[in-house]
């Protein structure tokens, strides 16, 4: 395998954007990432993005985003109707071909244009589930109930996840939700969809993120401390929720094994868990119940621009390595209802 590293990362502050278009949110983020890398878009070998037409409310919406990038002379470009983490995977694979040395990966999405929880209903089985109008929060609540009944975890454990995430978010300028409420205080709040309370659920966020990948010597030239991708893998489970054990994440476990997570201790992990109970499931799948710092950014509970959140996890994890505060990091991204599809990426410093 060719050594490929994250050498730059930028993202927008998560918010409900009532004035800026997708292009206007994305453009400064791409420029910031390119400036960090000291590259122009024209100099990169490949551009790959992740987004969803259902969020934008128009077909082929990724094409309009190219206005933000500057793709003249015509670029080699690709797009996935997935979180940007999967676009990063494609770019990583593309860099393995060996004929190009760098790639720009970006993602964008405005969840606020419609009802994101209803949009997410449309990914369900159109015969059996979609007609019932099962929304994303309700499905997550079913999963949370299954976990609470089938494990030692309690609603207090879920509230602890929220309290920690909100505290950590205070030092993340890109966060949308912050706070210093204790788990006890959060537990006093009413249910949204039992057993979930507001703090168990993600905010409605708009946003964009960009990552620059580079291979080998190019990565070393562009970045003082590149975050080397030592392993990356993604796995999907069946669509029907009724055939899955929702209290565990087999696909995360398998992807983690394939990516080499368990070979050595992990300093920091950025987990794409839009709901508090999903962090508990992911921590168990990844064996992260010891000394690993979990979601120092605050994670998806404090900023959840759908289609972007997973790429932000990779960017945040890489940022810890590029910033010198971690030597080995794990980033995780998810897609589909109730953690159906999961991507795991292991990042290391040169001396990691």
């Amino acid at each position, binding site marked *: 395998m060719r050594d490929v590293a994250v050498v730059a990362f930028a993202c927008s502050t998560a918010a409900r*954007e*009532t*004035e*800026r*278009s*997708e*292009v*206007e949110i994305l*453009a*400064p983020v*791409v*420029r910031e990432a390119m400036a960090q890398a000291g590259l122009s*878009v024209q100099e990169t070998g490949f551009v790959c993005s992740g987004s969803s037409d*259902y969020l934008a*409310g128009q077909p082929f919406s990724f094409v*309009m985003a*190219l*206005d*933000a*990038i*500057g*793709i*003249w002379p015509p670029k080699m470009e690709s797009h996935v109707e997935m979180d940007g983490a999967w676009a990063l995977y494609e770019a990583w694979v593309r860099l393995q071909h060996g004929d190009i040395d760098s790639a720009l990966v970006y993602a964008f999405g*405005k969840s*606020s*244009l*419609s*009802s994101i929880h*209803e*949009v997410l209903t*449309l990914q369900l089985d*159109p*015969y059996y589930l*979609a*007609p019932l109008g099962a929304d994303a929060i309700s499905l997550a609540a079913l999963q949370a109930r299954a976990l609470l009944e089938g494990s030692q975890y309690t609603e207090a454990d879920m509230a602890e996840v929220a309290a920690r995430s909100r505290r950590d978010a205070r030092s993340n300028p890109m966060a949308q939700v912050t706070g210093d409420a204790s788990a006890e205080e959060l537990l006093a709040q009413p249910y949204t969809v039992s057993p979930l309370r507001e703090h168990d659920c993600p905010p409605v966020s708009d946003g964009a993120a960009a990552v620059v990948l580079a291979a080998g010597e190019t990565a070393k030239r562009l970045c003082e401390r590149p975050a080397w991708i030592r392993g990356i893998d993604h796995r999907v489970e069946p669509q029907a929720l009724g055939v899955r054990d929702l209290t565990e994440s087999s696909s995360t476990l398998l992807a983690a094994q394939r990516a080499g997570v368990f070979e050595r201790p992990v300093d920091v992990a950025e987990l794409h868990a839009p709901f508090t109970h999903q962090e508990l499931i992911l921590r168990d799948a990844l064996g992260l119940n010891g000394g690993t710092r979990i979601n120092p950014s605050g994670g998806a509970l404090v900023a959840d621009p759908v289609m972007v959140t997973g790429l932000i996890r990779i960017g945040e994890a890489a940022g810890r390595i590029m910033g010198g505060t971690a030597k080995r990091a794990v980033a995780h991204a998810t897609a589909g209802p109730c953690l159906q599809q999961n991507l795991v990426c292991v990042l290391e410093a040169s001396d990691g």
Partner: protein
Amino acid sequence: MSDPVLGIVTPIRIEYTFTAGKSRTRFLRALQERRFLGQRCPSCSHVYMPPVGSCPLCGVATEEELDVGPKGTVTMFCVVNLPFYGQEIQPPYVCASIQLDGSDTKLFHLIQEMPAHEVRMGLRVEPVWVEGEPEPSMESVKYFRPTGEPDVSVDARSAARA
């Protein structure tokens, strides 16, 4: 074999509240004042009409705004002979790519007040605005019509490259 199920009803309705964006908002507001507000790229100097806030060639923000037109030149056109559901104009009519004076790109609109077979590349045109208060919409321009000025030469290949 059971009878095939030929249809089920799965009600799906998603409503969107679009945000035009800061740049497009200013363009649409200018239309209400019967003006065409273009944007110039600070890098390649291209003037965009209509603008999107970014130069798609250079990937930089196009913050400088300037009025272009309102007169322009037909650089490409086609004659629509086909009737279709919802059509508001009686065929044949002309859809044209129009380069407003001072702009490097083209916008698309209708050509009226001239027989379709007389429309040609290089034809000089001007906008005809709706009566009353214009909306922040391209429909505030009803169509373009000939100015009567002499034709100008159009390089078809560069015109098509936009």
